[in-house]
């Protein structure tokens, strides 16, 4: 019986700091682990819930990129049962050391700078996982396997044929020992993709990280794993459950389609989230008005629907007016869709307003479009936070509106790549270009722009 086995003292660490350009306007103001998922959840809930279900009592969350929304979300950690004697969930930000130290230089450097946190709990095993992944995994079983094998380090892999260049790949021998590992190779040596779930014995982790402390940056995939391979017993575990990640717009979008298809079963996985979030506690159950037509969709609290919604996931507080049609979209908190607006295949970030008759993702940009280098090869349109699409504004497939911008009707005529899909090779900008004026206020309606890089944080990202 698994419950009769007492684990070595295990402390969790969640790598939650990253922002990637591939997510464009969605991660301008939040790390990708804090991206909303399935309405009122956030991506990091999966890692936190897995930790909680494995009986891990202390978890450090490593974050440095705009952590405000993450800090608010984790709160006291109560939602994942991290409150109590000898329990805790702590955000571990970079700090100034006596010798002037600074920002995390790579994900392994983040752990290096917090070795003291691990030592503080007399940690025997460090469970280090990414906060950006969508999966349900029994870490407890993994740790038991790790100990039974006498491994120093266990990496969890998943078989992903034709995974491409984004991943780190391992090679296993017949005893499931890792014999080789390469990060983002041009030619993958296997189909075993690392899921960034690492189980380290404390001693080798400390030894290797300390040896690397003078490097400019330290990454697990690039630096730590290869170094471990030559000196320690490194085993692989092949995970065969569902797994997805939030690294690209298309992967994030597809994960939601999997959610609607039942491949992600939040209830069975017992995914927990923070319900004391101020954006959630004031919401009433969703209201379906007489003209609502809703199918194959998830609808969160506070939604008021009087239009057509299909194949979509609606976050808390979304309003869809009569006559509006929303198909295959992800709408984040408090998005308002006006009467007769039409949206297809779009991700709309928090508090954005799409006015009457606006069209999103319905038309193609003029001329043939090569999306090979685009933010979304699938042609998903992206609309940032607090943006506004004015009446009858048109945003083409794959178009991008930066946070706080206002897209007017007729704007699509002005730009060279008119409000629509980016042309091949145009990857720059991450939301600075596109059909709309960045942080513009052409409507002159007095809405505040979104330029809050100066440190304001009155809203939740």
């Amino acid at each position, binding site marked *: 019986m698994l419950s009769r086995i007492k684990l070595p003292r295990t402390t969790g660490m969640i790598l939650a700091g990253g922002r990637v350009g591939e997510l464009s306007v969605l991660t301008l103001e939040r790390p990708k682990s804090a991206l909303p998922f399935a309405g009122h959840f956030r991506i990091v809930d999966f890692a936190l819930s897995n930790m909680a279900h494995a009986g891990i009592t202390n978890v450090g969350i490593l974050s440095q990129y705009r952590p405000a929304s993450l800090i608010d979300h984790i709160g006291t950690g109560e939602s994942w049962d991290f409150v109590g004697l000898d329990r805790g969930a702590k955000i571990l930000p970079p700090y100034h050391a006596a010798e002037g130290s600074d920002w995390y230089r790579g994900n392994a450097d983040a752990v290096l700078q917090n070795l003291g946190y691990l030592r503080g709990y007399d940690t025997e095993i460090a469970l280090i996982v990414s906060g950006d992944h969508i999966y349900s995994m029994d870490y407890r079983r993994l740790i038991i396997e790790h100990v039974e094998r006498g491994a120093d380090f266990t990496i969890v892999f998943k078989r992903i044929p034709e995974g491409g260049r984004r991943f780190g790949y391992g090679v296993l021998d017949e005893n499931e020992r890792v014999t080789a590992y390469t990060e983002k190779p041009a030619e993958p040596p296997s189909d075993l993709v690392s899921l960034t779930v690492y189980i380290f014995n404390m001693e080798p982790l400390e030894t290797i990280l300390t040896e690397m402390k003078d490097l400019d940056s330290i990454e697990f995939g690039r630096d730590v794993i290869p170094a471990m391979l030559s000196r320690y017993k490194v085993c692989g575990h092949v995970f065969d459950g569902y797994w997805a990640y939030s690294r690209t717009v298309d992967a994030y979008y597809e994960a939601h389609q999997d959610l609607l298809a039942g491949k992600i079963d939040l209830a069975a996985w017992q995914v927990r989230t923070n319900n004391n979030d101020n954006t959630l506690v004031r919401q009433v159950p969703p209201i379906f*008005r007489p003209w609502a037509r809703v199918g194959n969709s998830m609808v969160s609290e506070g939604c008021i629907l009087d239009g057509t919604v299909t194949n979509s996931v609606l976050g808390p507080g979304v309003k869809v007016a009569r006559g509006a049609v929303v198909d295959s979209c992800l709408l984040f908190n408090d998005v308002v869709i006006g009467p007769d607006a039409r949206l297809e295949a779009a991700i709309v970030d928090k508090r954005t307003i799409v006015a009457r008759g606006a069209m999103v993702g319905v038309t193609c940009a003029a001329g043939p479009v090569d999306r090979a280098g685009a933010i979304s090869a699938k042609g998903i349109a992206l609309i940032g936070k607090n943006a506004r699409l004015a009446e009858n504004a048109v945003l083409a497939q794959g178009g991008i509106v930066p946070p706080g911008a206002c897209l007017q009707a007729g704007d699509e005529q002005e730009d060279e790549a008119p409000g629509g899909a980016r042309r091949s090779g145009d990857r720059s900008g991450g939301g600075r270009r596109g059909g709309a004026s960045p942080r513009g206020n052409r409507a002159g309606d007095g809405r505040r722009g979104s330029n809050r890089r100066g440190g304001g944080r009155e809203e939740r990202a």
Partner: protein
Amino acid sequence: MKGSGETPRLESRFDMRSALALILAGGIGSRLNVLVKRRAKPAVPFGGIYRIIDFTLSNAMNSGIERVGILTQYMPYSLSKHLGRGESWGLVGRSREARVLPPHTGTSAADWYKGTADAVYRNLDYIARYYPDITLVLSGDHIYRMDYSALVEFHMQMGAEATVAVKEVPIDQAHLFGTVMVDREDWITGFEEKPEKPRSNLISLGIYAFDTEVLIQELEEKCGVLGQTDFGKDIFPSMVARGRLAAHRFGGYWQDVGTLKAYFDTTMELLDPDSPLDLPNWNVRTNLGVGGAGDRPPAYIAPGAQVRHATLARGCRIHGTVEGSVLSPGVFIAPGARVENSILMHDTGVQAGAVVENTIADKGVRIGHEARVGDASLGDAGNRAFPTHFGQGITVIGKEAVVPARCRIGRNCCIYPGANLGRLDVSLLESGETVQWERRTEERGGEL
């Protein structure tokens, strides 16, 4: 937005942090029939995710009150679990609290609360510990939104010993309530409890503000001597005689949901965008942690489902048709099932092809495939066992009752909690019939 650009000013207003609220949550609410069989009336679920007491607690929170005592004695478990530590209403902190105050021994010979005033009297120690300027005594039974600070402001302006919140109702409904007579300045001159021929269309809302000193004095004088003591009958008359009891007119929404009809109609108001029961703007809070409601994913509406004129809570999975209905968390509606004009509470399931109309189903009710509940073709006879409770055509199914496949149930029917009609061999229940059933003690337990 308030604040930005304005010079900070001091307002001459009573600071509600110096008030203490006591919520009377002991009501049995027996007219709600099987819904209160195993829970107190303030703990009855309402509007999908709420319980009735959430409205009073949220009013207290929204009024800036930081200390709340909840006086309860009837079936307290679901209530005290629901309250938790009070954090859902911001009532946690060094100076903030929500505390359940059950009857306790040592106050006098007999230990159960004997009336509303007696319940407060037994907790004078609690009041004296804080000695607030103002003590509010609030009923936990009603659906309303009120800013208690307006009541307290009025109370202090009047210089009253106590102030009763009152509301004007159509005179033909006044006989259902306790009525209040007032003079030209809204000083109360008399009370009548459910008068046959009402002389006033002002009703008492069971919401009182007291000068704490007067309250303590009055309670010590009256309650020690008398056995059963209520505010209306035993405490207020002497204040009326002194001319120191004021009435504060409340013009907002207030609804007693103490009958099945009122409960049903008020719930359905949630679906009416023009109703003054405007929950999206009321800021009502509840404890999502209880019963796992907060752990559930958003509601899922399958392809081919039809949901309109309805509200669904978290964790609902809808494959069939839902119209004119209010569904609590975790309700499952199978393909081809139809639910109309009904209230289904937590985790109730309706199997394929079943039809449910004009029904209140408590938590965990199971309705088998092709079953029909609220079937109008079985007549519309009133309920024979509880003629005063039923009679609007609504069928009520108690918690965790089972309606087997192809079973037909008429209107105005009453099914007791836990009754398994399959095992009881009921395949047809004519309108107005009741299925009584008592659980054995060892089967009891669980969260209500």
